[in-house]
């Protein structure tokens, strides 16, 4: 989910620890079950993640941040994670329009990921994805008009 401007809840509530409810959004195009690629629809198929790493990878960045902030709080006191989180929120607001890819330079520098390379920089680079969100829809969603 896109992190909302108005999201005032903490890190814990942003964890995605479940896959969506069965039957409501099949994975194929046009909202119909794609039997060729994902087989017949069944409750088990849709409730369980398709790979044991899927959930842990989705939440990896959040979990890492949570762990780092709690260590920082224990070492330096409450002010340190508070200040850092304020800077994170400020950096997250510097974005392009919702359907365009932004470089997240400020966020990367704060996180320290400008000095590291991982699989998420090499595989599935979002700047080169073949699908783009429909511009009007995404801007309307962001402005709350949808």
């Amino acid at each position, binding site marked *: 989910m896109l992190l909302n401007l108005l999201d005032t809840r903490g890190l814990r509530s942003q964890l995605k620890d479940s896959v969506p409810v069965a039957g409501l959004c099949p994975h194929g195009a*046009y909202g119909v079950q794609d039997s060729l690629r994902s087989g017949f629809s069944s409750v088990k198929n849709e409730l369980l993640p398709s*790979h044991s790493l899927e959930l842990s990878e989705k939440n990896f960045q959040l979990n890492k941040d949570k762990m780092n902030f709690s260590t920082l709080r224990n070492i330096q006191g409450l002010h340190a994670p508070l200040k850092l989180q304020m800077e994170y929120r400020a950096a997250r607001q510097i974005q392009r329009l919702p359907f365009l890819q932004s470089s997240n330079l400020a966020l990367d520098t704060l996180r320290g990921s400008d000095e*590291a390379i991982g699989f*998420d920089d090499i*595989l*599935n680079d979002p700047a080169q994805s073949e699908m783009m*969100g429909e511009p009007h829809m995404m801007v309307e*969603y962001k402005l709350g008009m949808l």
Partner: protein
Amino acid sequence: MATLTVNRAALGGFSFENCKRNALLEGEANKVGCSLPSARKTGTTICGVVFKDGVILGADTRATEGMVVADKNCSKIHYISPNIYCCGAGTAADTEMTTQIISSNLELHSLSTGRLPRVATANRMLKQMLFRYQGYIGAALVLGGVDCNGPHLYSIYPHGSTDKLPYVTMGSGSLAAMAVFEDRYKPDMEEEAAKQLVRDAIAAGIFNDLGSGSNIDLCVITKGKVDYLRPHDEANKKGVRTGDYKYKRGTTGYSLLITHRRHDVFISSMEMMSEVTCVL
């Protein structure tokens, strides 16, 4: 109107979209009787030893794809930094990509700190990455190098556990190589003795394990100098053909004149013509 996914988060990294489809296809294929193609592995013998001035890493050079040899001379000792090298066993692509990623990370880190990277840093980075993926990245590594604190040797398992030891072996031929090490290892060996020991350990793996073969590569790392000996020893030479249809070099060519000899024809039997009497 079709529902559009407005909320798609653009994330990089591994995508698990095709996992269900692959599981379905594998089930179907097994019902019919065929199997999906398997990844190329380096069923391997790799080993390392710490000697007086540094570290020696050794590896064989065979890569297998199921029961077939995919590469007779592949290079299993990967560069991590000018003073650190890493041997890789397991899935070939996994070891290759993991060592390249860690090498890039270590280079960025050393540019940021301004110092020569340490082996412990590389070890920690590898361990954290492999644990994150819970063993799905099949890379078993022997990491060795010399830094400001002296020579270090680590073995790293696919699930993320590491051992710091004076001599280590990994791969399918690791038991054969470890037997040689356990017999003849002594602390603080000289370079030549250590090279001979590593060569013998890899040779034991090559001759006693089907997944290892071909040549022996060595990498000798000392303070300020790296000797990458590839190949150090060709233990398995491909056979030489005994016969050859080609003419040897230096043969003089000339054209042949073929003469036919005519044989005399002997009549062995003759049919006598009977006299015809005319009757008037």
